[in-house]
């Protein structure tokens, strides 16, 4: 469309207004995080701080076990991303490229999973995790202890499954040209070598989109850590932030500093991988 000057101006004004509404709360969070305690207590209503106190961030970090929370979050997120990518790619490749007995039935079964919200399966998942045999004080039949609850397993293993990821991987591998496989067959390569040597190296775009999707999902997840863990040593940063708020109700400047610290990895990734964020936003909606 080729807009007139007035149309162009109106469009800019509306966009500007919504942009301000979208980011003003975040800017205020940032400015508040920089305000000194006295200025904050005196209750000056100004947007910008009188004096900047970047040391707030260090203080906020020292007020809780943030090192531990970050370590937990990084460990859980990295394991979930890497593990789910490998499993998704394997299954997606098999469903897309190999004809095998039961393949289409199993894939159909998986598709049903796309309709099931995490909030529905959380109770039985909790029970499954609680009764993993021989873990967390459980006997061979999964009785007596806590199983995988309150451990890294509870936060990682359920995240490794994903009907959505397999579905996306299959779509991706379906689009590849048939000739790829034939060249490999002539060379006498089996499916396993075909996958590892030819398909996996071509999976960059798939991995980027699925990886971002998983990263955002697990890094930002509050629901599952809340329910599957309870000891302070298992806290991820999202849980840590929530607890930190309870312990430091009044000191909003420090709370806002902590909020931004927790968001930094997501913000950095967003700046670096905007395209993948947008693509995964659109495709993530399939999962609902």
């Amino acid at each position, binding site marked *: *469309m*080729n807009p007139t000057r007035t149309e162009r101006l109106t*469009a*800019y004004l*509306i*966009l500007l207004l*919504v*942009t301000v509404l*979208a980011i003003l*709360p*975040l800017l*205020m*969070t940032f400015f508040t995080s920089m305000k000194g305690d006295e200025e904050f207590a005196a*209750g000056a*209503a100004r947007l910008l701080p009188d004096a900047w106190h970047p040391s707030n961030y260090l203080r906020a970090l020292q007020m809780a076990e943030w090192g531990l929370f970050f370590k937990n979050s990084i460990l859980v997120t990295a394991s979930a991303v890497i593990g789910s990518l490998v*499993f998704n790619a*394997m299954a997606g*490749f*098999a*469903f897309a490229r190999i004809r095998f007995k039961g*393949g289409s039935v199993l894939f159909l079964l*998986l598709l049903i999973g796309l*309709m*099931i*919200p995490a*909030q*529905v*399966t*959380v*109770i*039985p*998942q*909790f029970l*499954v995790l609680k009764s993993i045999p021989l873990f967390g004080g459980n006997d061979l039949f999964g009785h007596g202890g806590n199983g995988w609850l309150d451990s890294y397993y509870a936060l990682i*293993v*359920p995240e*490794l*499954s994903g009907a959505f990821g397999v579905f996306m991987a299959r779509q991706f591998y379906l689009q590849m040209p048939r000739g790829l496989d034939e060249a490999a067959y002539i060379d*006498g*390569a*089996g499916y396993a070598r075909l*996958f590892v040597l030819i398909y996996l190296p071509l999976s960059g775009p798939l991995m980027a989109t699925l990886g971002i999707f998983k990263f955002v999902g697990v*890094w*930002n997840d*509050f629901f599952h850590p809340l*329910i599957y863990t309870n000891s302070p040593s298992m806290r991820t940063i*999202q849980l840590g932030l929530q607890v930190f*708020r309870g312990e430091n109700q009044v000191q*909003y400047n420090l709370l*806002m500093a902590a909020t*931004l610290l927790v968001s930094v990895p997501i913000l950095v990734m*967003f700046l670096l991988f*905007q395209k993948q*964020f*947008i693509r995964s*936003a*659109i*495709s993530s*909606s399939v999962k*609902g």
Partner: protein
Amino acid sequence: MNKGWNRIVPYLLIAPSMLLFLVFVLIPVIRIIYLSFTDYTMLQPPVWTGGANYMKLAHDPVFGRAVANTAWYWLGTVLPSMVIGLVLAALLTVRLKGLAAFRALIYLPGVLSSVAVAMTWLWLLDPLKGPVNRVLSLLGIAGKNWLQSPDTSLGSVIVIGVWTGMGFAMIVLLGGIQSIPDSLYEAAALDGASGISQFTRITLPLLQPILLFLFIVSTIRSFQVFDLVYILTGGGPANSSTTIVTQIVGASFQDYRMGYASAMAVVLLAATMAITLLQYKLGSRNTGME
């Protein structure tokens, strides 16, 4: 190459995904349907009680409140986000400078964690020190304890839901609009169609599958709202902002009424399935995502 080995390779490739899917999705769904017909506190084995949980649910005023609140949240977030998203997406297709920046900044709240979003708004809406009440008092309007008053708690959560959701709607619709071929607009322009009539005659009709898709997806998401409510208001005060999922979590992991909570979860599952099937029925398979 070993033929027998090659035959089992596909099963080995799908084994991890299928196993995890069975253990963490499919069997749990079957199990929760079973549990919804039982009394189960986790201390003793489940006791079959037939439809008793569902009967109790139908007469539980707090669950009724949760369903109504979820419906209000749905009404208050889905349509406004979609309308705002549509306007923004339409504006962003007009050739302007700085589009990428606008798009990124408007989407930004949508990538933050719900905890970070909740913390930000706890501060903004703080009754004593929060900027919202301060600005209001400058204008001579008495502020409120937005999150802790029964008449404003749900509304506040809804506004925050729109704030985080509008960028997502914009992104999805923008993708849809960009997939409409330019040639259609060029032909319309040759016929002398104005920008507005191009929008109503070309963009909107061709966008219909995406609009339906977005509507369904946002609807399902709104049914599942939990984090924001849990952190901002805890469902209170006096259940004024409680939702279906906060009720599920409260009944199961706080009160250990697993059977009763399972019945609530099955209601949520049924609603989600119904909406999803409706989408297929309305023929939106082709959402133009690829």
